[in-house]
């Protein structure tokens, strides 16, 4: 692919330094725990089973900075991990050659980010999310969990 012309992953510090790659992976895991764990707190409240002494709007307000910190961590470490061996993820670059699990992961991640900061947060902020909240919260948990599955399956498809 044109953008990667002349790019040799062998010179990437992630491949020349023994520590760099696993450190990125650990930060990626810590980041998604922060991201998904804090969103799950809001989701479980909307579903009506967790932290019922607070409202979903209160929980959303107080977890939001940590959700954002988690997102920043995964969005920094993810592309670094990708850069260590782009061909593993996208082959020669054509969509047809992308690793299918990686393709799903990127599509689902884009959807999850948009969904979380639009529909999800709007419903969580409403005074009484009710039945819609159950749906929105359950879909959120499943979507984020599927992204973790897709990340693992990159190495198995």
């Amino acid at each position, binding site marked *: 692919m044109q953008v990667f012309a002349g790019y040799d992953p062998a010179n990437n510090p992630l491949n020349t330094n*023994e520590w760099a790659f696993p450190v990125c992976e650990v930060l990626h895991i810590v980041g998604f725990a922060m991201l*998904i764990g804090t969103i*799950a707190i809001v989701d479980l409240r909307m579903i009506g089973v967790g932290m019922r002494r*607070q409202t979903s709007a209160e929980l959303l307000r107080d*977890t939001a900075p940590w959700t954002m910190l988690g997102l920043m961590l995964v969005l920094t470490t993810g592309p670094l991990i990708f850069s260590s061996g782009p061909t593993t993820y996208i082959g020669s670059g054509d969509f047809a050659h992308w690793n299918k699990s990686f393709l799903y992961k990127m599509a689902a991640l884009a959807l999850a980010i948009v969904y979380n900061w639009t529909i999800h947060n709007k419903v969580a902020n409403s005074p009484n999310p009710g039945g819609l909240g159950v749906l929105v919260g359950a879909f959120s948990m499943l979507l984020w969990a599927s992204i973790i599955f897709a990340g693992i399956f990159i190495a*198995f498809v």
Partner: protein
Amino acid sequence: MDFQSFMDTLQNGAFGTSIRESTLAYPIILSTHLVGMGIFGGMIAMTDLRILGLAMTKYPMADVHNQLRPYKHLGLTLVVTCGLLLAWSKAGLYWPNPFFKLKLMLLLAVAIHALVFRRSVYKSLSDMDKFGSATSSAKVAAVLSLVLWVALVAAGRWIGYWEAPNPFEQQL
């Protein structure tokens, strides 16, 4: 029978082999291990950060801790069950790995942490709420918990990067 051959027997038994060689079971168990970490790790972090006065400060510490507890237990059960299955399927391979032993020691440290601080910190949060802030031992417990869990994740990753010494190379 030494411990290594016991671990080899575990790994090469029908159960361990079926997990290891399954194209679906192994990645599904691994993914579930990480989903458990995602939900449970995030909730642990929020509880610890609440005790440290850095997150969710508008509600009492006991509220955060007690209400998240069932989900942290669920997450821990998920993570530990999947972790045991993964370790079972590669027991003989992992046993010589120093990072595997480090991970076991960190798990022991987590168990000790729970025993030491259960009564003095985690069951006394509502008293601390009345007093206004966490005691210094509660803050020590929270910092230790954060450090231990991140260290466990790191040890888990490093297991995959350790290469067993090659006996043929050593002879040269």
